[in-house]
């Protein structure tokens, strides 16, 4: 990928990995960010304690294909709908949203209905996340 001709041919997928809300556990987010980078993607890592507003503004400025939210605090039912709402307000409906963390199955279903393309729980293989990210970014 360092060759300039290949650079032209393929546009790297850009992914924002963010941690909205107040929990301070970012190991999962970092593991995912690293896996996506190693799969050739450009990963914008925003760090801890982001508001949905900050995440959506960063996603806008960085022109990402996919937003990955890592939430372990249990506040997903508030944070995720807010991110999706803000993305819509900005006209960024084409940006795909994935969620990772501790999400009970019934909540996961509700989030999917809101438009979240995937919910990844503990124990998900990073290969699966890479594969999924690639397919939904390319399909967009």
């Amino acid at each position, binding site marked *: 990928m360092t060759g300039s001709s*290949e650079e032209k041919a393929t546009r790297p997928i850009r992914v924002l990995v963010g941690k909205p809300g107040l929990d301070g556990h970012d190991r999962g987010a970092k593991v995912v960010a690293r896996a996506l980078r190693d799969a050739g993607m*450009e990963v914008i*890592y925003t760090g801890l304690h982001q508001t949905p507003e900050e995440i959506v503004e960063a996603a806008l400025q*960085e022109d990402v294909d996919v937003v990955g939210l890592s939430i372990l605090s249990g506040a997903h039912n508030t944070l995720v709908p807010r991110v999706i709402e803000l993305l819509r307000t900005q006209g960024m409906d084409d940006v795909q949203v994935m969620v990772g963390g501790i999400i009970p199955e019934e909540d996961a279903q509700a989030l999917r209905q809101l438009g979240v393309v995937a919910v990844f729980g503990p124990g998900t293989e990073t290969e699966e996340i890479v594969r999924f990210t690639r397919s939904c970014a390319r399909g967009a």
Partner: protein
Amino acid sequence: MSLGSDILRGDRRALARALTIVENQLPEAEEIVREIAGHTGRAIVVGITGAPGVGKSTLVDRLAGHFLALGRQVGILAVDPSSPFSGGALLGDRVRMEGRGSGVFMRSLAARGHLGGLARATPRAIQLLEAAGKDLILLETVGAGQSEVDVMGYADTTLVVVVPGLGDDVQAFKAGILEIGDVFVVNKADRPGADQTARELRQMLSLGPHKPWQPPVLSAQAQSGAGIAEIGQAILDHKASSERDPEVGTRHVREAERFLRQALADRLVEAAVRRAKAAGRWLPLVEDVARRRKDPVWAAKELAGGEER
């Protein structure tokens, strides 16, 4: 509406899209660049360079806040390295940024194999930010060591950030980045040895040729914000001084020539590789070089053939 005119109206999404287009060198880039011509070249571009971990991102964030409070329209370009293996990149400079919402437009750029500490799309990205009305652009390089000096070609003012304890003054002598600094910042100045680092820097700078602008050495603690106002002032002072300095014009011409050469080389190399691949000559030659059957210089000569005459 075209993307170019949307940018000129200040549409942030259009700006973000256009940045992607120039980064990926898509064909639409030419049209956008044409549309915004005449609205560029107006910003003060401040380059921030220094070794990894010296506090560049934090400093950029605090300077952004400082200039924002002065009523400036601030844009940030932050470059991080790409993996030479996967081509991917972890762009982490936002971690150090305090939420400034839409007041500051920041874009992370992956270097994508470009050497020199910046991304290839940097000059065009600067133009786009200028067209969007930014009049102060902070350009953060990858963590740079001794030869990542491209930044001085793009920046009106180059900040070199150092911290105490990174080796003796001979290291600093070797380092090309010490020649490119217009303002030096000794960051993390609460650490032991900071005064000595500043003293050594000043001494070294005093050995250099006498120029109309003598680069100041300023102490700062970006984390707490100490010293930021002084750095901001030094940037504006340098800008005012360089407007009177004929040497600065010469430097920009020299850098322009270097960039033009580089851009030309990129194009010629790409074309030559494409031709060789199309003729089926590329892979066998690579193989020959890998097996030491051919010397790379000779192999290149074979391929260049036509152009050399």
